[in-house]
């Protein structure tokens, strides 16, 4: 027994070291940037110059920072969606489709409903979340009822969502004339800050006197990042502090033991996917209410949901992790695009960097997995 305890104690300490996820993520980011630099050098660009452009592209002007945040908000929230599902043992590839359902619902409700300011935005947001929750919950239901794997069903639902979006956008009553897009949402539903004032005469005059704020106000500055922060806190709270979260985590870690303990595993599939869907829908709604103000006829997926997978994995499936990895990814996406215009370097280099980071982030997990597999094997062979 003591030997065993010693073994486990030691394992405990080692795991403790490995659990320094932040440390590993930082190393992974560093390694990702190094590999990106090598690739840049190989194709004939100066990597230091390229990275300097990226850094400048994010931090050199206040408005760049705002743009970065705006770019980051949807992927932070789709990151929550994927992370939430992961924590409950499910792989939500459907954040993409749930995002679309959220955004088309927001676009429709934002245009067709007539409600007072604040209430309108809130109503639209909640409707979008609910619609996307149903969409996600459908995948959960298919798993619970018919045993359809959520990866299969959500991939298919992504395409259905895409074409449903396109169908709705192109309906005569929805489509804006001379555009492949829906009508803009009403001003009462918008969540941007100082939207009307900043382009008013008084606003313009004030902005001329305050060049710093003038700069900040140029982008579609909106409440999205604050809502994202709140959603992160809410998600972490539900998962870690509530009875529902306890059940969801139990099912995620070991559904057989959860089932034996009287937890309704099937119900939890549906609930988990509905919450994940709702979060992705919230991302879509925030994008429409704060930035896009419309839904467009899409030729292909936009990738918000898929980026959410990257964000969740780099953020080690925690709210706070997703928040910062989303900001980081958002910054690279926004500023990486500038590589093309300034250096002529392909912006795809950002995908390489992100992919490499993801690869290295997965590495300590891989090492942990191998270690735990080995220790389990050891357990078996020592007859424990």
């Amino acid at each position, binding site marked *: *027994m003591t*030997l065993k305890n010693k073994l486990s104690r030691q394992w405990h300490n080692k795991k403790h070291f490995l659990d320094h996820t932040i440390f590993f993520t930082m190393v992974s980011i560093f390694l990702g940037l190094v590999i990106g630099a090598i690739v840049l050098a190989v194709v004939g660009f100066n990597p230091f110059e390229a990275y300097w452009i990226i850094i400048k592209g994010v931090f050199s002007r206040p408005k760049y920072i705002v743009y970065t945040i705006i770019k980051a908000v949807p992927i932070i929230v789709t990151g929550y969606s994927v992370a939430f599902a992961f924590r409950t043992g499910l792989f939500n590839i459907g954040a993409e489709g749930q995002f679309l359902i959220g955004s088309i619902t927001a676009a429709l409700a934002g245009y067709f409903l007539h409600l007072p300011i604040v209430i309108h935005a809130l109503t639209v947001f909640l409707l979008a979340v609910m619609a996307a929750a149903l969409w996600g919950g459908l995948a959960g239901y298919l798993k619970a009822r018919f045993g359809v794997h959520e990866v299969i069903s959500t991939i298919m639902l992504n395409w259905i969502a895409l074409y449903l979006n396109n169908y709705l956008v192109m309906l005569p009553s929805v489509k804006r004339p001379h555009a492949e897009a829906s009508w803009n949402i009403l001003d009462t539903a918008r969540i941007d800050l100082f939207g009307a004032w900043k382009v008013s005469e008084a606003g313009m005059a004030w902005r001329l006197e305050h060049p710093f704020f003038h700069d900040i106000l140029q982008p579609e500055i909106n409440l999205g990042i604050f809502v994202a922060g709140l959603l992160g806190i809410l998600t972490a709270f539900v998962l870690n502090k509530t*009875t529902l979260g306890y059940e969801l985590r139990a099912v995620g870690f070991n559904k057989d033991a959860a089932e034996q303990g009287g937890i309704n595993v099937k119900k939890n599939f549906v609930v988990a996917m509905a919450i994940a869907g709702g979060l992705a829908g919230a991302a879509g709604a925030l994008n429409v209410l704060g930035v896009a103000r419309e839904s467009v006829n899409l030729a292909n997926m936009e990738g918000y949901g898929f980026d959410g997978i990257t964000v969740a994995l780099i953020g080690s499936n925690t709210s706070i992790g997703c928040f910062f990895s989303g900001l980081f990814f958002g910054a690279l996406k926004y500023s990486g695009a500038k590589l093309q215009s300034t250096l002529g370097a392909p912006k795809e280099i950002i995908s390489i960097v992100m992919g490499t980071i993801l690869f290295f982030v997965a590495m300590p997990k891989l090492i942990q997995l191998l270690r735990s597999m080995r220790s389990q094997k050891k357990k078996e062979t020592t007859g424990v």
Partner: protein
Amino acid sequence: MPEIDFSRTVVDMQKITKKFGEVLANDAIDLTVHKGEVHALLGENGAGKSTLMNILYGIYRPTSGAIFINTKPVQIPDPNAAIARGIGMVHQHFMLIKPFSVAENIMLGREVVKKWGFLDRKKAFRAVEALSEKYGLKVNPRAKIQDISVGMGQRVEILKVLYRGADILILDEPTAVLTPQEIQDLTRIIRNLTAEGKTVILITHKLGEIKLVADYCTIIRRGKRIDTVKVADVSEQELAAMMVGRPVRFQVQKKAQPKGDIILSIENLQVKDNRGLPALRGLDLEMRAGEIMGIAGVDGNGQSELIEALTGLRKVESGRILLKGRDVTHLSPKKIIHQGLGTIPEDRQKRGFVGEFTVAENMIIEKHDQPPFSRRGICDFNAIRQFAKEVIRQFDIRPTDENYKARELSGGNQQKMIIAREITNNPGLLIAAQPTRGLDVGAIEYVHKALVAQRENGKGVLLISLDLDEIMNLADRIAVIFEGRITAILEAAQADKNIIGLMMAGYDPQKQAEPAVA
């Protein structure tokens, strides 16, 4: 008794030390085995006996120490090297390919081929038959693995090792999966092996089988060799004390207990297995509060399906289950738990606990949504930890830290955790499925005491175990399960172990008697 040739030392391991990181799994262990000897390695789980044998078989490399095979110093870097030196190992978990025949499995890797690379099945069959006959293994080389019993599977594993020319056979916990009859057969086979000059090393923590077959026994405790003894000179009690490091009580102390009301009544229960085939074919059983009912049977006769049907995890096709007189047949697991059923599940790693949860979180899995652990849907982690602390103290779970992850506990403490959780739920009926599988003597003693305490508190205990000794030792009544039915119920006090063993294999005393009468 076959003769041991003391002039020929076949295995000599000297000062074998194996460190895993900082942990000493083997601490300067000496082991000497002579030709024709059955040498048992006895030790608790995690004592280091399997590590030592894995070193001999080339799975691990020793940190220091020397190995001599037939007095020649050797290096054994991998199992192939071990096999080349005549060492073979039969693992606890069989490594057989189910759709293949016995002979095909045995020659796998050493196929007998004709011209053009075609398999020479006839020759292989003959070779297997010859080997089987020589050692009295009675194996049919043409049978498919999927159709043969566990005991037969083990013999195939032994044949596999012999076929590869092993002179030294390491058997890892060979009786864990066998019926009493199969254990007797195995004993006979081991004797045949040593009679033919083979040497057998037996890894075990069962004292009975050491007394039965072993000549010498080396006791290992916490990585150290305690002693090597001649088995004939020591009692089981002495062996156990050396293994655990303190005296152990074998016989469970049971007081006479007045039987209470009927607590469980199963009527004509029909349940299908995972493949959709009937697993329970009209099972009837009735038991009372204040008794331990033991279900004896060979693995795969419907025990697992019975447990799952009782706990609500498996669909009941027809029949009824009454718990304290209330029909719980089609209720959800949660409702059945609320009706007063507790379960120590068969597969504790799979169903017993959530490994990534802390001990505290695991303690409340059935009552996580009830006050004081949950109020208005919010968990009260202070209350949960307080409760867990109390239970850990009361049930002596180690380490005494409720924040430890469950998977980091030893097997015995994981089982203690499950038992503590179930007993604190105060169930009217406790299902204990394989409650001591894989546990060492100390932990077994603990589990048995806990089950008897339930009985003495006037609760019912349904004990389902493949270990007939455990059932004989604990149960008040024994129900024999065979092919999905209870074929007999006997008072444990009057039960004959051999008869039960036969009944577990399908022998029906009444049926056998009939033709004689006619």
